[in-house]
């Protein structure tokens, strides 16, 4: 094992003067005994699935419950009008994150990053920054390895599922992973990637998992939207030279402790938070009645 913590990862990258994505690929070769080519080909396939999902979402989909869908299209039309308040890149990321999660909710094919419920953030931000940096296919694949390296640390030291640690563990982890990868693609240092991840995750701490009617739709899709926005802003902050006072590994540990304190009602059981609001309960009743006809 080459690294277990973000600190190991950054120190290794600095010592060997390598990108974090390259260290992740080397570790994968070590663990799986597969060749570099095989590993890169597998990630290329994941990237292809992500592209397909975004395209499908941008053409407009609706979930089986009828609860969600079409918001990615609304955002695209709004961006085209040109009167938007936040920047193009930010809104494109949000729109493509939403597109992916709308496809997921419609039982379409996606690539979990790190989970299905949080599958929008990493591809949404990747395809948005792609328009700015015009990366090669190889560099886009590296983006996913960098995101994966940070997710790998979170998964092994904390958790990545809503049932175990709340939404902070899902969309929180996804956002942190994305911000670290954006920094690398933008030419930032491994240390800046770690700060971006820390800044992002700090702003997601405590986020509960409270899916309306138990569906991965409300509020999951909009949380992916904000997760993407959070990742881009945190990446900009880190690239500006802002540092997280609390080191990334300690933020991950804090996330773990917060998740451990969360009651089961706020961990994907649909028994707390937004899931038990009057409107949510009404939706739940309608869906279950509809499902049994």
């Amino acid at each position, binding site marked *: *094992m080459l690294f*277990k913590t973000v600190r190991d990862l950054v120190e290794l990258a600095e010592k060997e003067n390598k990108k974090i994505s390259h260290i*992740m690929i080397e*570790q*994968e070769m070590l*663990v*799986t*005994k597969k060749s570099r080519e095989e*590993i890169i080909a*597998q*990630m290329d*396939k*994941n990237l292809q*699935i992500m592209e397909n999902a975004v395209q499908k979402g941008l053409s407009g989909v609706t979930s089986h*419950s009828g609860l969600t869908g079409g918001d990615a299209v609304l955002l695209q039309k709004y961006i085209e009008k040109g009167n938007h308040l936040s920047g193009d890149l930010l809104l494109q990321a949000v729109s493509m994150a939403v597109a992916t999660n709308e*496809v997921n*909710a419609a*039982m*379409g*094919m*996606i*690539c*979990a*990053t*790190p*989970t*299905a*419920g949080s*599958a929008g953030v*990493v591809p949404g931000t990747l395809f948005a920054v792609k328009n700015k940096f015009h990366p090669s296919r190889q560099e886009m694949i590296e983006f*996913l*390895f960098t*995101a*994966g*390296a940070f*997710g*790998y640390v979170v*998964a*092994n030291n904390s958790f*990545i*599922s*809503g*049932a*175990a640690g709340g939404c902070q*563990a899902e969309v929180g982890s996804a956002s942190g*992973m994305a911000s670290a990868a954006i920094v690398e693609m933008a030419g930032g240092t491994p240390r800046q990637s770690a700060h971006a991840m820390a800044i992002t995750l700090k702003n997601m701490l405590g986020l509960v998992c409270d*899916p309306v*009617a*138990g*569906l*991965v*739709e409300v509020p999951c899709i909009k949380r992916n939207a904000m997760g993407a926005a959070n990742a881009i802003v945190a990446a900009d902050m880190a690239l500006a030279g802002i540092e997280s006072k609390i080191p990334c590994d300690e933020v991950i540990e804090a996330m773990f402790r917060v998740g451990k304190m969360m009651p*089961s009602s706020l*961990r*994907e*059981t*649909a*028994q707390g938070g937004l899931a038990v609001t009057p409107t949510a309960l009404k939706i739940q009743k309608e*869906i279950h009645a509809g*499902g049994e006809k």
Partner: protein
Amino acid sequence: MKFRSVFDIIGPIMIGPSSSHTAGALRIGKVARNLFGRRPKWAHIHLYGSFAETYKGHGTDVAIVGGLLNFDTFDDRLIRSFEIAKEEGLDYAFFIEQGIPDHPNTAKIVVGDELGELEVVGISVGGGKIEIAEINGFKLKLTGDNPAIVILNNDRFGCIANVANILAKHEINIGHMEVSRKEKGKLALMVLELDENINNEIMDEIHALPNILQVARIVE
């Protein structure tokens, strides 16, 4: 390190909507199918914790049946798995349990046909990754940190040595091993934690040994 590969994090490719409640659930069903070694005629599926609370919205039920039909997480027939199960003669029933499990996403699957039955308890730990906690009432003490395979065999002399010989020939180290049987001379099982994943050729080689009934990966 429970999550060993970057593709546990960036992946799997799957039909939505939930990696733990859809893809993970499917994988538990698939382990039950692979251990059983053939398409079962019937399946009793018990759901616990968050699986019990939210299975409908996540398609957990559809996914487990899909796994029992040997579908992959990215197989788009998944959505129609109830229909396909009926066509193929797999009779399934769900039981929503009130008991509080050790892990929120737990499923117990009992499959069978006229020749026998098999029980598997699986846990979906997040991101589509699963752990198998019990097989035929035998609690597995796996750390989840290393790849693991399970072998079902007739309880006869030499089975364990034969398996160990094949692993030795391929220079694969066994980190931990457990053996169990229900009754002397009947069905037995071996669980082996290995230092590395083994490929399909080695799996087939083990399967071809005398008295070996099934070989399946339970931790990758």
